[in-house]
């Protein structure tokens, strides 16, 4: 239903800890690293040093993918609900 729901339904089910996952965690701030770093051209906009013939511009930006994956994985693991299935 798109209509605003009245606040009446389901007062009988106070939510248990397992069905809620509060997002708040200091670890979430880590997510800023892979958002900010790939957007600083001064870091990657150069030819050398080359890696397997790739100028830095290309290999470093591809390497940022690893940075992104690592950060999101770490944050996911650290903020997972304790006692999770």
């Amino acid at each position: 239903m798109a209509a605003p729901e009245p606040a009446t339904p389901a007062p009988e089910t106070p939510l248990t800890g397992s069905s809620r996952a509060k997002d708040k965690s200091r670890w979430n701030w880590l997510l800023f690293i892979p958002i900010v770093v790939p957007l600083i051209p001064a870091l990657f906009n150069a030819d050398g040093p080359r890696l397997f013939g790739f100028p830095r511009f290309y290999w470093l930006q591809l390497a940022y993918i690893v940075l992104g994956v690592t950060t999101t994985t770490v944050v996911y693991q650290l903020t997972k609900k304790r006692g999770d299935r």
Partner: protein
Amino acid sequence: MWRDHLTEIIIFTLLFLLVSVMGFVAARWRAPRDMAHLDEWGLGGRNFGGWITWFLVGGDLYTAYTFVAVPALVFGAGAMGFFAVPYTIVIYPLVFLVLCRLWSVSHRHGFVTPADFVRSRFDSPVLALLVAITGIVATMPYIALQLVGIEAVLKAMGVTGESTLARHLPIIVAFAILAAYTYQSGLRAPALIAFVKDTLIYIVILVAVLYLPYKLGGWGEIFGAADAKFDASPSPGDGILLNANNQLQYVTLAFGSALALFLYPHSITGVLASRNRDVIKRNMSALPAYSLLLGLIALLGYMAIAADVKPLPGASEGTVDNNTIVPLLFDQQFPSWFTGVAYAAIGIGALVPAAIMSIAAANLFTRNIYKEYLRRDATPAQEANVSKITSLVVKIGAVACIVFLDPQFSIDLQLIGGVIILQTLPAVALGLYTRWFHRGALIAGWVAGMGLGMWMLYQISSPTRKHFAGSAFPLEKFGFDTPKTIYVGIVAVLVNLLVAAILTLILRAVKVREGVDGTTSDDYFADEGDPRVTPGERRDADAAPEPVA
């Protein structure tokens, strides 16, 4: 002409038929008790696990057009075209938490589209209508562009004709089949086909990036050839590195595109179809595998330079169609059977996103226009039916765009699409975090952002075109004394936010009614297993490991 490519055509056709059969069979895959519900047809039962979501969202975001256009851009302009890589890196940490909130609130309230959420959050049918229309308008040309991807392949196979109809017949047939199985199977069809599409793409690209550099003399040679080409060209903006004037454009384009991506209705459809918050979070870590693929695909543009590929002529006299370089590169370098596989990968790669996009656009129409304005008491079965029919209409419209209009028109529209979808950011993305903005102010901000964005795009010219020649706006037109350029979308959305913020303060000061928030703060954290999360129906079979096809 086409006889030289017979092997390729046969393999392409066989693989295409295979996925067509899969598309029809998909209706029975993870079959629901009752398909006549939008949750089933339009969201695949809201029950996809990690693997399916990965293939579905990956197949949805990284479209055939991307695979053709990004290397074409790198071929033509060099480093600038590589923006797609930072764009698709930044996106996932950016939306990591946002999408979880969207998932939770949508599952609690049964929202199917972003406009559903806005309607309830800000108690404003008008704002919801604007979000819905923006979504539909931004998605339509994107669907048409998928056809451009297929067409590039057909052209390279020599499947062209003299008359308009003959030239477009293969595409019309392909889209008719696509329309039929999407109508029948809904979101399940692209979800199932995505497995084939992505497997093919991964194989083709891995082979290409290992085999082609070996054949072309190594990566050093490839970059050297590209460097030599850009040095010789008169254009100041190209090169294998960025220059002082296009760095701002590079960064703002990457960031702006990242902000826009998950505002597109088809991306949200893929996210809402997932089973729980965990699936989304795990996918945000796993989806960058596609970004690596995209980065490597982008470099095919340089390989085409090194291999001395000459693009085929474009639609109008004296132009070239850079979109044909990747198909031509494959044709030139690979044995024909493998070229056939590669072409099929691109062709099928167009079908998955086209199906999801048409479903998303159809859902927007059904939920936010039909149900809101035409038939308030529509039953779930009627909703599903309207959506199915709308998805057909949307596809016919996309084919008509390509057949009767210059493809350039669709490309322009897609460029505009990225800018206008960004204007829903304050209501949809920020709305997930705060209800501080006043609904009236959000509408005004949307109008301001749209107006400015369109004006800026209109002002952009190039040596060959007077208007709409890209998204890089020269700052000197704002009166700054600099040759630097900036991405239009970022400027437009900043103005949008500014207007929305100022008007919020004013409207609140004069006590204009704000409506009632239909959501509670608790809604944004609900997860699978929550008694109020819809739909409650779970299939026991899903407790087992992910079923693969």
